[in-house]
């Protein structure tokens, strides 16, 4: 199956991802420009109508104050017109909110997808640092905070800014002195708000960090509920939770307090602003410069200034949250996988030879004094042959196989597949050709089908069923009430069955190289017999590495490699090694067991 070109492994030359706020806006709102334009039109019209309303009120007041001399017909017409305009404003706002939400969800769905693709492209070193719960918070929690920002930002911030400018223009039209006064007030308020806004960014980031920790903690404990309960450690973990929650509480309270400074400032400033306008209205009226209707108009327009500034302030809040989220998203997007794919392709169909040349590997390259996991490992495995990999627990067998599929890269030396250095090969292409059955089978709580196909709709049910039968899960499948669409029965699946499912996953692909990491370790001997036939079929014509604890598992191997403490103790054709009396392998055969106690054949 060829890898789709879209999201292959990240290339160092790829254009840098958006890291600034504006960059993100451009990338994710750009494709939605028509919807955004429609949104702007709705907002403009709505704002214009909104500014007309107080004018109607002024005319009404100035006519009404005539008392008995007022023209009732005119007053009634004004009232009717007022109602119509009001309904218009409302329709525009509702439309704008809907379109805004649409834009927001569309844009952030894209961002979520990109974020997940990016996270998945990172190497395992990154994944070890984070719990799945934390990932949920990063891919969904942060992005949802952004979603509000995207959808609200356009509607509220843009709408509010329009209204604010319109209202200021109206003030100028009535009286330039009041206009200047209000202008100074608005500018000062916005500057003041913006300067206190930054107070909230860092605490908000810490709050989200604490929240990710808290939910990560909860998720892990829920996943390990049985272990905790059967060890009677519930109280202990509850205490751990309380401590984590306390940090979250402290951070949240602090962060809310810092953020609320914006609101408090706004209230204080507006108290001043309203008093100012009222003073101006009374003063100008007393001086005879304006009519009573205009005095009332000034007061009404002030609320048209208050509303948008209020909105802007509230959105500053959202902006802060979004800013903090963006910062974290930027952090993640800035992470680069230490493992990059090359452009080379593996030689076409069929088995590939595998070669290790002076390979050394350590999990912590920064600490040279630590002894690495693998030391100067070299061997050659011809195409189509099976290598039996032996060694004590911790001797580096699993690590060795991880270098082939490039979950990690060799610290020095090279690993070659079909003569091509694996580091030069396209990562996707490589992993599609190298199948791995790990010690720990990772399953999803999803249907049997999705577990085998990894949610790929192109794989048919029949293919899935065939794969299951091939690994001997036919009777198991027959018991499922909805066949392959049955949700994987969580908890009731034995580790052996899980192993068989992992085999079926491999069966669904057509890999060139197969790595079986202790495939039979969780199977009882009777069940393992089921696998033997399937395994023979699977290995035929393919290059394979088998790590096993049983001698009969490696009896099918063409070559044997014995690993001890990260070094190759022995490497050669199985038949030859068996014939050399003092070889490790021959000693094992004599002992009749792979891992003898006491004497330490493999140590």
């Amino acid at each position, binding site marked *: 199956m060829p890898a789709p070109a879209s999201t292959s492994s990240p290339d160092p030359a790829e254009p840098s991802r958006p890291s600034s706020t504006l960059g993100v806006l451009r990338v994710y709102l750009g494709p939605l420009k028509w919807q955004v334009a429609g949104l702007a039109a709705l907002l403009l019209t709505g704002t214009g109508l909104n500014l007309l309303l107080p004018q109607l009120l002024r005319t009404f007041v100035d006519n009404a104050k005539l008392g*008995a001399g007022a023209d009732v017909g005119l007053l009634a017409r004004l*009232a009717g017109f007022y109602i119509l305009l009001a309904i218009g404003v409302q329709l525009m706002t*509702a439309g704008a909110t809907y379109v805004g939400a649409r834009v927001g969800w569309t844009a952030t*769905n894209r961002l979520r997808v990109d974020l997940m693709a990016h996270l998945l492209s990172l190497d395992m070193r990154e994944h070890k640092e984070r719990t799945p719960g934390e990932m949920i918070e990063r891919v969904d929690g942060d992005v949802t905070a952004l979603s509000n920002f995207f959808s609200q930002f356009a509607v509220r911030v843009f709408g509010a800014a329009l209204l604010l400018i319109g209202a200021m223009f109206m003030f100028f039209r009535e009286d330039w002195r009041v206009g200047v006064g209000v202008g100074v007030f608005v500018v000062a308020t916005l500057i003041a708000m913006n300067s206190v806004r930054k107070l909230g960014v860092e605490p908000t980031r810490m709050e989200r960090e604490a929240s990710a920790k808290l939910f990560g903690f909860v*998720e892990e404990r829920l996943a390990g509920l049985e272990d905790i*309960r059967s060890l009677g450690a519930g109280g202990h973990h509850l205490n751990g939770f309380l401590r984590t929650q306390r940090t979250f509480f402290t951070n949240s309270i602090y962060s809310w307090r810092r953020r609320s400074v914006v609101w408090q400032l706004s209230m204080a400033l507006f*108290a001043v602003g309203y008093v100012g306008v009222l003073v101006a209205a009374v003063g100008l009226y007393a001086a005879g410069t304006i009519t009573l209707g205009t005095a009332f108009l000034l007061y009404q327009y002030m609320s048209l200034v208050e509303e948008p500034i209020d909105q802007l302030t509230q959105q500053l809040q959202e902006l802060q949250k979004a800013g903090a989220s963006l910062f974290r998203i930027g952090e993640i997007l800035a992470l680069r996988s230490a493992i990059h794919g090359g452009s080379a392709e593996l030689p076409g169909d069929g088995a590939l030879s595998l070669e290790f040349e002076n390979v050394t590997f350590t999990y912590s390259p920064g600490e040279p004094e630590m002894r690495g996991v693998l030391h100067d490992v070299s061997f050659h495995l011809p195409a189509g042959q099976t290598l039996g990999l032996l060694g004590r627990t911790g001797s580096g067998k699993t690590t060795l196989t991880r270098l082939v599929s490039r979950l990690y890269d060799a610290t020095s030396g090279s690993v070659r597949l079909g003569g091509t250095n694996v580091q030069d090969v396209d990562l996707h292409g490589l992993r599609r050709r190298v199948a791995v059955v790990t010690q720990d089978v990772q399953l999803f709580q999803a249907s049997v089908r999705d577990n085998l196909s990894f949610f*790929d709709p192109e794989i048919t049910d029949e293919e899935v069923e065939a794969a299951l039968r091939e690994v001997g899960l036919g009777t198991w499948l027959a018991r499922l009430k909805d066949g392959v669409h049955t949700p994987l029965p969580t908890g009731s699946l034995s580790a052996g069955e899980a192993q068989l499912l992992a085999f079926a996953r491999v069966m669904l692909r057509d890999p060139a190289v197969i790595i079986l990491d202790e495939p039979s370790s969780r199977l*009882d*001997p009777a069940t393992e017999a089921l696998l033997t036939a399937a395994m023979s079929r699977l290995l035929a014509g393919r290059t394979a590495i088998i790590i096993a604890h049983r001698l009969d598992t490696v009896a099918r191997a063409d070559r044997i490699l014995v690993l001890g403490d990260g070094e190759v103790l022995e490497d050669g054709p199985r038949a030859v090694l068996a014939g050399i009396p003092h070889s490790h392998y021959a000693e094992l055969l004599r002992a009749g067991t792979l891992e003898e106690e006491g004497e330490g054949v493999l140590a």
Partner: protein
Amino acid sequence: MTTAPTSKSTTPPDRTFALSKRLFAYRPGLFVFNLFMWGMFHVAPALIILAVSRVFGQLDQAEILRNGGESVAPAIAAAWVFVAWFAVVRASRFGVFYGAFRAFIEFWYTLDALVRRNLLGYLLTTPGSRRLPDTPAEAVSRFRDDVEDVAMYTEVWIDSAGIFLYSVIAITLMARVDPLITVLVCAPLLLMVAFVQKLSPTIRSYRRRMREATARVTDFVGETFGAVSAVKLAAREDGMVAHLRSLGETRRHAALRDVLLTELIRGVNTNMVNLAVGLVLLLGANKIRGGTLEIADFVLFIGLLPRLTGSMGYFGDAIARHRRTGVSYDRMTRLLQDGSDAKIVEHHPVYLHSGPPAPPTAPSELPLEELRVSNLTATHDSGLGVRDASFSVRQGEFVVITGRIGSGKSTLLRALLGLIPVQSGTVEWNGRTVEDPATFLVPPRSAYTSQIPSLFSDSLRENVLSGSDEARLARAVRLAVLEPDLAQLPQGLDTPVGARGVKLSGGQMQRTAVARMLARDADLLVFDDVSSALDARTEAQLWDGLFSETDSTCLVVSHRRAALTRADRILLMQDGRIVDGGTLAELLDRSEEMRALWTDGESQGQGGVKR
């Protein structure tokens, strides 16, 4: 990943009240203080509008004086007085907000913490078997979103009091000016509340769909990253991303419906204000001519109406939020399963300002003489499981349970320990029936290591100790044959193990879990197939250590010779039943099944025989 429909979907509204009342009573002083402060905060605008209306009233007065050719000075002076009143009320509202906001945040997050503590506490510590109804990731959304919904519901109550008071004051002020206009203006507002009421079941179902779609997204993200190495190794990143995209699309549709409906309601709310102002203008037009309605009254109406309409809308919204809170309570109750919903709001200390005290000490010791299991039956929905299992384990015995894959070995252990629901049968400890194995069979009586143990992202030391006495650490680590691993790890016992222990190898995780069990000094040690991640030699070392240094009783699931040869007794399982039991020699002699299991395992480690 499926979100089953809420079976008991109808939360009686009084239940939400009762639960919330209990919740608010957690910090009664703070609740009352919030009520008081927010009450003042919401009432202040009425005073402010009153001042404004008086200002314009005085200006109107001045207009009359001016037209009459008199001095306007007294009216203007009076207007200034009201401007000062206005200034004072505005300024004090600012001070009230400062205090009210702090009080609210404290209250909100405290209740938030309490509900979360109760959910987790219940799952971690109450009797009976506990299994999550959904995935852990799905359950996290209960802890995140539903808890927040419930805690935020306080806002409804705290604001309601103040807003109600404002409404009463506003209506009184208006009615004193003109009762007829007041009635005509308020009637549509009431209609709107009725309208929202009618819509609320729809809101609820939209909301639920939206939540479910969100849960599916978060669930999927959790599942993906929980199995990230499998995804990467299979090069299936694209497929996973495509699936997320389609889940996101479903969620977007659900969200937009929710927005549309909410917006419709909000639209009706705000429209009402302008319609009401329009009505006042229309009705007032005549009265102004007749002189019964003055500019000041008019300003009062226009000033009071927006907030009054807002209040009505608020109450409509409050009803909707009340229902949503009911949904959240439903979902949390579902998480607790057999637990009553009252557990969610139970009062417990949450230790937000100081560290929690040491957890309660382990239950009393009750040295094991004999564990007897009689007629235990525990089946899964699929029909698989354990049927009618009876056996006993005496002090100091090493009993091995063996059998093929799917023969029910693990299920037997988990049923016995109360980790899964049991249909029938009894477990006796020294002849006395154990009512709740889940809480009884814990250290110091019994300890258990599962087939695939869960570790937590913390240091290795913390994982092993999990609250045990530090003094037991060294021995547990040695007996679990973890010492060679420690020598390899850069920071030894202080090594962080990573999320769910991913930084350790499968064998290291298993040995860590064994050490964790041994650090608890239990009488009965229950091992579910530790051999799966241990090589034969390590396993033999483990059993030998246990035999020589402890007098523990062991109940072990295994098919390894290292275990079988050491067994005092072997229980042979087939198709969910214990079909035979005895010593290895006896079983090999009389059981075909045992011989099959034994022969197949021949090459797999005979260390035990040599011992």
